[in-house]
């Protein structure tokens, strides 16, 4: 069951989860006709791959995409693989027992892998069993092109012809009775491709500023006039505008100024503030099922650095943000899963500019209260010359869809994986614990 201890502020009570479920029940009925999505208005982006699964939403999924191809080898360092240090004489992260390296050495995880020192704030979460790493993961795409790789990964399919994103398909195939306009959000001024085609998704930069800017006494009339203008046709703007109006209404009721984080403060950087916004929405129970955050700056061809340097700064922001988020959401973490991913990893061999070129195998993180964390999941392919693929890259031994698929099924309560990752059979790693809500549902069905 969802933990019931989340509502702290009175303001939030006007917007309880119950309100949303209540509203949702009506619209869900409208959507379900002969088990098909036919009752959807014609303007809605239509994804009718399968009859949706009817059941409660599980975790809120926070999907963090490191844009540019993050160097997983310097994040979860295979310090037990001698070849790692041969490939990276200058930017390699020293072994945990390298006393000469001081604070600049790997923080050991399991005797073979260790964390980049800038990720050290994550170690407590790992030790608490709420954080897992998946090494040598990625997609089968071998173009080493950012755009091709991101496109395929975010669509979650290899064949052409389907331009919806995997998160959009997840949302379309899970009828959770949640009709919130904030069911899926992208933090920032655009949505990621994984949400392409999502019926309900909003780009959100700030809760406080999400309102129509006009003279207060005229806002009501103005809004209604604008709503009329946007309901004359039935097209992609109609949907987007309705979404916007609904979100304005919901977000206007959240007390932003009074928000106090539950743990260490969020850093002032963009990533920290994005996580803070997501945490506020989760606590306000406004029906967020999926939140996406993009983080730029991982295409480290030059001056990537090692234990210190530009990538280390990025990692410090990443770890600081995640640690603050985890502490802030202690009461909710049983219903939250965070996934961190990137389009590909980087070449095993460092290049001449203290950087790395585009590679293949990558690293993912999963954080949340419903995970079998405290482990590095890896079928380690090795870094010796003959073990590398293509121009000298870490092989992919775990398809990224195995990670996402298991989380979708066990944590987000959506069993319709073939519709979400068409043409792919998910092989779970045993990473996630089934969500209680889904267990309850199954019991009910057996009765």
């Amino acid at each position, binding site marked *: 069951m969802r933990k019931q201890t989340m509502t702290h502020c009175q303001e939030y009570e006007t917007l309880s989860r119950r309100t949303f479920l209540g509203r949702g029940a009506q619209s869900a009925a409208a959507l379900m006709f002969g088990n098909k999505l036919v009752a959807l208005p014609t303007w809605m982006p239509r994804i009718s791959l399968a009859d949706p699964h009817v059941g409660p939403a599980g975790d809120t999924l926070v999907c963090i995409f490191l844009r540019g191809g993050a160097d997983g080898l310097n994040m979860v360092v295979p310090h037990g693989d001698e070849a790692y240090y041969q490939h990276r004489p200058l930017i390699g992260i020293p072994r945990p027992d390298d006393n000469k390296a001081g604070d600049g050495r790997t923080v050991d995880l399991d005797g073979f892998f260790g964390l980049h020192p800038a990720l050290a704030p994550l170690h407590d979460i790992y030790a608490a069993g709420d954080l897992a790493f998946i090494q040598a993961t990625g997609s089968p795409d071998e173009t080493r092109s950012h755009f091709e790789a991101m496109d395929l990964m975010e669509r979650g399919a290899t064949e052409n012809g389907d331009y919806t994103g995997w998160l959009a398909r997840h949302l379309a195939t899970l009828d959770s009775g949640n009709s919130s306009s904030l069911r899926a959000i992208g933090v920032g001024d655009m949505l990621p491709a994984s949400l392409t085609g999502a019926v309900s*998704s909003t780009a959100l*930069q700030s809760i406080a500023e999400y309102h129509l*800017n006009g003279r207060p006494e005229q806002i009501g*009339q103005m809004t209604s006039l604008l709503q009329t203008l946007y309901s004359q046709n039935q097209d992609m703007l109609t949907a987007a505008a309705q979404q*916007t109006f609904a979100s304005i209404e919901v977000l206007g009721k959240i007390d932003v100024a009074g928000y106090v984080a539950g743990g260490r403060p969020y850093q002032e950087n963009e990533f920290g503030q994005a996580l803070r916004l997501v945490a506020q929405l989760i606590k306000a129970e406004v029906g967020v099922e999926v939140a996406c955050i993009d983080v730029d700056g991982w295409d480290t061809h*030059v001056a990537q650095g090692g234990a210190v340097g530009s990538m280390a700064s990025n990692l410090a922001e990443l770890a600081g943000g995640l640690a603050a988020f985890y502490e802030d959401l202690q009461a909710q973490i049983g219903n939250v899963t965070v996934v961190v991913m990137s389009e590909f990893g980087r070449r095993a061999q460092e290049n*001449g500019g203290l950087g790395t070129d585009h590679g293949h195998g990558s690293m993912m993180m999963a954080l949340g209260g419903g995970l079998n964390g405290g482990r590095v999941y890896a079928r380690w392919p090795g870094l010796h010359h003959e073990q590398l693929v293509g121009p000298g890259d870490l092989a992919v031994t775990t398809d990224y869809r195995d990670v996402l698929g298991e989380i979708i099924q066990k944590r987000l309560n959506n069993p319709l994986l073939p519709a979400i990752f068409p043409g792919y059979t998910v092989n779970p790693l045993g990473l996630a614990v089934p969500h209680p809500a889904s267990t309850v549902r199954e019991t009910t069905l057996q009765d």
Partner: protein
Amino acid sequence: MKLTRRDFLRLGGLTAVAAGTAGCSVVGRELAQNELPPIMAAPTAGATALTQTAPNLPALAVNPARRLLNRAGYGPNPASSEQINRLGLDAYLEEQLNPETIDDLPGDLIARHQTLYQMDASVLVEQEPQDAAIELVGGTFMRAIYSKRQLYEAMVEFWSDHFNIYLRKDRMMPLAKMVDDREVIRPYALTNFRDLLGASAQSPAMLLYLDNISNEKSHPNENYARELLELHTLGVNGGYSQQDVQQVARLLTGWTVAKRGRLRGQFVFNEAEHDFGEKQVLGKTFPAGRGEAEVEELLDLLASHPATATFLATKLVRRFVADDPPPDLVRQVADAYLQSGGEIKPMLRVIFLSDDFATAPVKLKRPYTYLVSVLRTLHVNFRLGRGHAIADWMQMMGQPLFQWPPPDGYPDVSTAWTANLLPRWNFALALLHNQIAGARVPLDDLLAAGGAETAESALQLFAGLVYGRSLPPNELELFTAYIGSQSIHNGEGQQRLRDCIALLLASPEFQWV
């Protein structure tokens, strides 16, 4: 450009006023005031047709002159409307394709007031990068609003996406990007792709952005090599392999930017870091011992490749015609490219004169286009201050100039932009209530020029400017009810008229082109 005597007088007055101020700040205001035509012109040339439908897109009745101004530029203003009505569509297009023949006092004035922009590269390199960023963004924006060379400005934007450079990649980047704008994008925006490609390949900004400055023979860096193939020429399915990427990277070793000395900040070929060995690219052998010339040969090979023709044609058709490019038109445009030896104008002629163009489904304006088109539509007096409130709006809408980090340029399909409508609405409201620093809507002038006395006539006037049509009774009723019986010339009545104009600009119809 030939200046008339009257122009000279105006120019003299302007430069005197502008001296010692922040570049083009005064220019915009003066221009807007001077250029306001006595009659409110709207584009009317050609017969209005209904656009094709497509999934999730409305069919709209579109006047072909309005469509051309909307797409081959940043939307109609009174001057361009007058011009297209006078010349007709074909002659207007031909004039736009030859921007040097257009008497463009506004554009030239803006350019003249960009002080850093005119500096020699060796002097520019000593300047403050942030000043260059402000001047470059401001100048580009001002020209989009006021220049009469609208298609040229639209192509500058197209190539600035195609050869994307991220202004914040490096502290020095704004200076380098300024040179790139001046010596790569603008000189070749309407000429020949091979020349453009060659200039880009020697652009310090590009070499810095895509890390070719650290592409050395002992440790090749593939970044520029890959994007040269994937994003600048062949396209990702253009038939090259990872091996080709690595071979091209070797070819480009030593192709760099001088770090010190007389040529600091400028392109140099550093033989000492060049890999003089033999290379194979796309099946062609580049014999050992050649050096700089082999890069030119490589660019010849890439620019003349059929995959490049198709890739460029697809992108141009997507930008100017439809999100889903009609394959036949793409083929014709690619043919025009190959037959002309990479000329850009023949491709644009095929595009803008095609039947597909006239009736293609609508596209959603990108945020930047929306922003500029609002200012053009209302003939806003825009005075660019140093603070750049306008840059914040670009950021909120999702398209700040030259600030897309990855090298593929801002997205060019409607679906990329639908989730963020609110900043567009709020921009229109802020503008109409004069809450945007430097921008003033000349409401009284427009009402006078349009001879609008009543709420109804004022609403029809602005519907004409914004939509190119009058409001049908049901819509008119909505707006007049909002204004009520008060006078539109002052007080609450005028505030409400301002709300209504903002709502016209915020409405769905004005989001489409």
